[in-house]
């Protein structure tokens, strides 16, 4: 029985690979358009006209990697799920496969995380190309970097699962604005957490956003030493605890609402 379920699970992964593979260029465009312009304006234009410090690009790049991976993973699961559970019901065929119901959201999350990881990874050559000399990534924490990229994508995918099972089709645009915009701007994407000590209350508020930990984790793994000094980030252990907890809690909540939506 388990063998049959694993087979079904793998077939679903393969289905998603085939579908994404067929739409790979649109997928990349969707994932990379925003970071492309962010890198250009914040990393090139603003320092170029003297409105941002020259080192700003190196601080911002990890934030862009985190944001891109998280959003790409969320998009990979939220919108398809909202439509599917709302009216398309294309997922029914998979729900009727011989596997436990919760494996279906698990597959969605894993695949969305793959999409997020791919999107994050493409930021590196893109950043190198746009930022030129401003591109600076340390190479001694490569393994940690890979781990952070994957973990960030998983955080995005599990948040996407919860959103996809909670949002009704008629609420899509409102919810995207209500959720994405705050997520985007309170996630320490464009500023390091440590620098927020001047606005204490805001420094506390951003701690409720998982993106903060992802961005800080990537800063820890990417930003080179400056004059022999490490960039101060959130402590690594807190970053890992927060990201892992977010993945687990969001997955449990998302799977629970998923089940409620598909088995009434």
């Amino acid at each position, binding site marked *: *029985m388990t063998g049959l379920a694993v*087979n079904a699970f793998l*077939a679903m992964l393969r*289905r998603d690979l085939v579908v994404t593979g067929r739409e790979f260029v649109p997928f990349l465009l969707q994932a990379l358009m925003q970071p492309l312009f962010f890198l250009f304006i914040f990393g090139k234009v603003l320092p170029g006209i003297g409105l941002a410090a020259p080192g700003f690009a190196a601080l911002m790049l990890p934030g862009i990697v985190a944001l891109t991976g998280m959003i790409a993973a969320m998009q990979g699961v939220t919108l398809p799920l909202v439509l599917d559970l709302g009216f398309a019901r*294309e997922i029914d*065929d998979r729900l009727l496969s*011989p596997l436990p119901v919760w494996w279906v959201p698990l597959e969605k999350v894993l695949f969305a995380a793959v999409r997020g990881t791919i999107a994050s990874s493409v930021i590196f050559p893109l950043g190198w190309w746009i930022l030129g000399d401003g591109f600076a990534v340390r190479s001694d924490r490569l393994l940690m970097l890979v781990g952070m990229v994957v973990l960030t994508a998983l955080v995005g995918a599990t948040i996407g699962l919860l959103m996809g099972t909670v949002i009704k089709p008629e609420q899509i645009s409102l919810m995207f604005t209500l959720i994405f915009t705050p997520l985007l701007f309170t996630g320490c994407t464009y500023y390091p957490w440590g620098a927020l000590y001047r606005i204490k209350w805001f420094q506390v508020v951003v701690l409720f956003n998982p993106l903060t930990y992802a961005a800080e984790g990537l800063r820890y793994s990417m930003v080179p030493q400056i004059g022999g000094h490490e960039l101060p980030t959130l402590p690594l252990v807190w970053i890992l605890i927060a990201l892992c907890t977010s993945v687990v809690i969001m997955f449990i909540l998302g799977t629970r609402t998923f089940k409620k939506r*598909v088995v009434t």
Partner: protein
Amino acid sequence: MTTPGKSAAIEVRNLVKRYAKSNTNAVDGVSFDVSPGQIFGLLGPNGAGKTTIIGTLTTFIRPTEGKSSIMGFDIVDSPIDVKRRIAVVPQQSNLDRSLKVREILTFHAAYHGIARKQREALADKLLGELGLGERKNEKVSRYSGGMAQRLMIARALMHAPDVLFLDEPTNNLDPQSRLFLWERIRSLNAQGLTILLTTHDMDEADKLCDRIAIMDHGKILVNDTPAELKKLIPGGSVLELRAWADPAEAVRVGARLLPALRALPGVTKVDEAAAEPPAAPPPGAGKKPGGGGWPGGPPPGMAPAAPAQPEPGILVYRVYADAANTLIGAAAQAVVSAGAEVRDVSVKHPTLEEVFIFLTGRHLR
């Protein structure tokens, strides 16, 4: 779960489903068996609970009470075993629109663990049989409703299920597709597939089903073969009577006529039916002043465009009786005595539709 001496393909015992925030049971204590190789029809008005029963048996809806099994596997305790043995063709297309037609079949089979070679051969065979072979590399969005329906049937057959659920399979199909589907259903059944279908189409139920359960308000009213169900109309006949009375008098005439018809010998039930508009109104019929049912004539500007209205004063009765043909004279006499004119009398032999209306009444759901 199975009764000694026979093992049912589908067994439903005291099934109850009450949805959250509802104060009535959508399915209210339903029990029935479907033997292997049978075509079983669930008939009922909209909202009778048919789709809820299918949803429960296909593991999408959790029963509030009761036990049900498919091929001996409990639907709550062993949903995965159940899923391996069933296939579902829903009312509305749920085909995977991101895949090409042939992939819809091959991936479905892959979800069920069927090896690549086998599933590809089977997909081609089924697509050919269902007349979709030429367009197997398209996406479903280019398919017509009938083609999508056939594709869903092909998909359902990919993992060789024991039990097939068809939820209103021929709804919205053109006559050609409907006939084609009926033939397919029969030939699948001849190969041993057990089929449970829901339908509003009495002709379909009559032609296809070995047994039929007629449902209303979440309960099964009767469960029998089509032939036996038709015997439910006592004596097996219906007298349909159209009479006309002066519109001003119609209500009073009706009040006299109804008990008179009920008192005729052998009558078991009399239904007062709504008068339907004449099938093809004569040109200008709607323009008669005061003829459209508007007090003081139709509103200005509306009369020429008014749709066909039933002629005022028309009374229609369905008299269920042991021998309706012997009542023609007496019924006509009753009409005249009540102060009306006979417009039409006809004796109908019961169709499944008569049985259905007899059991579930005529009011709209």
